[in-house]
């Protein structure tokens, strides 16, 4: 089954495989392709019941134009950027430090703190909801991007610490030993020795956290409301109510909301997968 490379199989098998591949892909992406098709149709197609036939006209520019010029979509997108980017920077910065502390030093409670980060990263959001909302309201950060960013940084620090610590653990410890023998201060070891080696991990984490935060919906609706601070995942629901039952526009809106993380993935694929699958191989 698995290990026989296709090149060693019969010609017929090879051809079957080659035709099966695109077919399987189309099946796999069918729901998405359907939405793409919706998003280029004119409204009249839906009122005439032409959901799946040839579009009567190609309205890509008209539909997407309306998403950008007749709704709050650009504002929501911008909010998402202003929420996601600071979170990425904050969470990665904090976890470089915690990862360094937990990965390099042996001290009492090291493993305990490490496991606390891991466990916290697994908890259901709902157990945090009431107190976090309360804290955000009482600090006056409710319905602000800052409030959302602070929480996201804190929560992502759990996952990022797990990631960074394991990555640092795998670095050659001799380098650090050597630096210590030279008398280099600990913070300089972090800055000049460890940090440069962590570049791939930082890249991988950044793209991962970017995607996680961009796609967050739960915290967006718990901690913000309205186009002043809400990211695009929450904004898309108000967008849909503005254009209710107009499938061509709702489809276009959803695709617009989905594009940034998809683009990020295709641009940074290697890092993304490296980050996601860390630990899948031992």
């Amino acid at each position: 089954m698995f290990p026989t490379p296709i090149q060693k199989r019969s010609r017929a098998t090879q051809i079957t495989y080659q035709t099966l591949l695109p077919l399987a892909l189309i099946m796999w992406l069918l729901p998405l392709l359907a939405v793409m098709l919706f998003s280029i149709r004119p409204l009249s197609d839906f009122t005439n019941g032409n959901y799946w036939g040839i579009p009567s006209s190609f309205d890509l520019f008209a539909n997407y134009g309306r998403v950008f010029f007749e709704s709050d979509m650009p504002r929501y997108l911008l909010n998402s950027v202003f929420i996601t980017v600071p979170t990425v920077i904050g969470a990665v910065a904090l976890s470089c430090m915690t990862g360094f502390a937990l990965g390099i030093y042996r001290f009492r409670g090291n493993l305990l703190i490490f496991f606390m980060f891991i466990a916290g990263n697994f908890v259901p959001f709902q157990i945090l909801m009431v107190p976090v909302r309360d804290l955000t309201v009482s600090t006056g950060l409710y319905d602000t991007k800052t409030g959302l960013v602070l929480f996201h940084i804190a929560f992502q620090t759990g996952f990022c610490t797990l990631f960074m610590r394991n990555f640092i653990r795998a670095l050659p410890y001799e380098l650090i030993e050597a630096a210590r023998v030279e008398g280099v201060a600990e913070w300089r070891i972090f800055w000049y020795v460890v940090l440069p080696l962590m570049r791939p991990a930082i890249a991988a984490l950044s793209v991962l956290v970017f995607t996680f935060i961009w796609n967050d919906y739960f915290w967006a609706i718990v901690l913000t409301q309205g186009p002043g601070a809400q990211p695009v995942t929450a904004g898309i629901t108000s967008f849909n109510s503005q254009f209710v039952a107009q499938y061509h526009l709702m489809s276009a809106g959803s695709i617009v909301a989905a594009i940034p993380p998809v683009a990020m993935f295709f641009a940074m694929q290697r890092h993304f997968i490296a980050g996601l699958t860390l630990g899948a191989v031992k």
Partner: protein
Amino acid sequence: MRSIIKTPLAVLAATTMLSGMAMADGHGLTGDLRIFSDMSNPAPRAIMEGLVEEFGELHPGLEIELTVVDREAWKTQIRNALTANPPDVVNWYAANRMGPYVDAGLFMDITDMWDAGDFAGLESVRGAMTIDDRQWGVPYTYYQWGIYYREDIFNELGLSEPTTFEEEIANCQVIVDSGRSCYTIGSRYLWTAGGWFDYLNMRTNGFDFHMELARGEVAWTDERVRETFANWRRLIDMGAFIDDHQTYSWQEALPFFVNGEATAYLMGNFVVPHLREAGLSDDQIDFYQFPAIVEGMPMGEDAPTDTFHIPSGAQNVAAAQEFLRFVTSADVQARINGPDGLGQLPVNANAEVADDEFIQQGFEMLSQNATGGIAQFFDRDWPAEMASIGMEGLQEFMVFPDNLDDILERLEDARQRIYE
């Protein structure tokens, strides 16, 4: 740093407030005015945006920030909005639906404004804004409910407007036999099913009984309630309603009416602009009052009222109050409720009722043929929690009428818990 900036601003605000008070007519209002509105459908949205613009021109010193929230989502968000960082003006609904926010002290008591005569012409609707003898907001529109139907298809089938339930059912049989459904409905957000229950119950048991049920004085398992459901079931069993309605919003149910797959829609008058926009001419649509079930029983009608309120945590109360005076004034009322606007009825008695077939018919019906009484709507007359559980039961009944016993028991349990 912060305090350096803050001081002059505070002084400025104080002085302008003083001058604003001195002018008394509200000109010279300054600061931010934050409005959260649920008028998210295209026509109401345009009205709301127009109102804000106009109000802004009257008060150039005001920085108005309008946030339009999805109408359905607003029902779950409002409490959040009122408790955390409350705006200065919000939309909501009249009668019992205000209850939870009044009880929680989240709406500002504006009885003073009512007593001072700030809302001339609104005396007749004051009751709908009253809880515990105090007033908690102002209405800005109300509208009749009734059966909107495809006049052209009725003509084609040789049908005329029914006045009794038996005629309604006879008509419906003809429609079903022609391969159509009698009624379109989208019950995803539940309240549309509440409209059907309101009418069937008011026609079967009368307005007074309906209100007793709303106040929790009658058991849901009462025989009279079952009778209402039995009438409803006659329609369900004959295939009067479209399939899959539990998946559609009321807007998504519109195409069935527009395509002629369903011939009637029990709905509020706000549906008319949508029908016109979808390409139906006034020759194709008409309206009739929900027919009588028991002969001689006075007709009760639903006429829901939509409202504006000032949250008790509002920052710019002066501007918010002025906005309330502005939207309820006769002139603004006539304009926003016209056929180009909301297509509904003005709450101000001095405002002219628009010269529109449907608006006029509704006005006439409510003022002359609603002798039973005027109800707000299921989700406003019942306490909010009971309404929510109740409407879920109504929706389930429409899909699985056999579950009635179970549903009624559940509602009865809820009644005993909620009204205690």
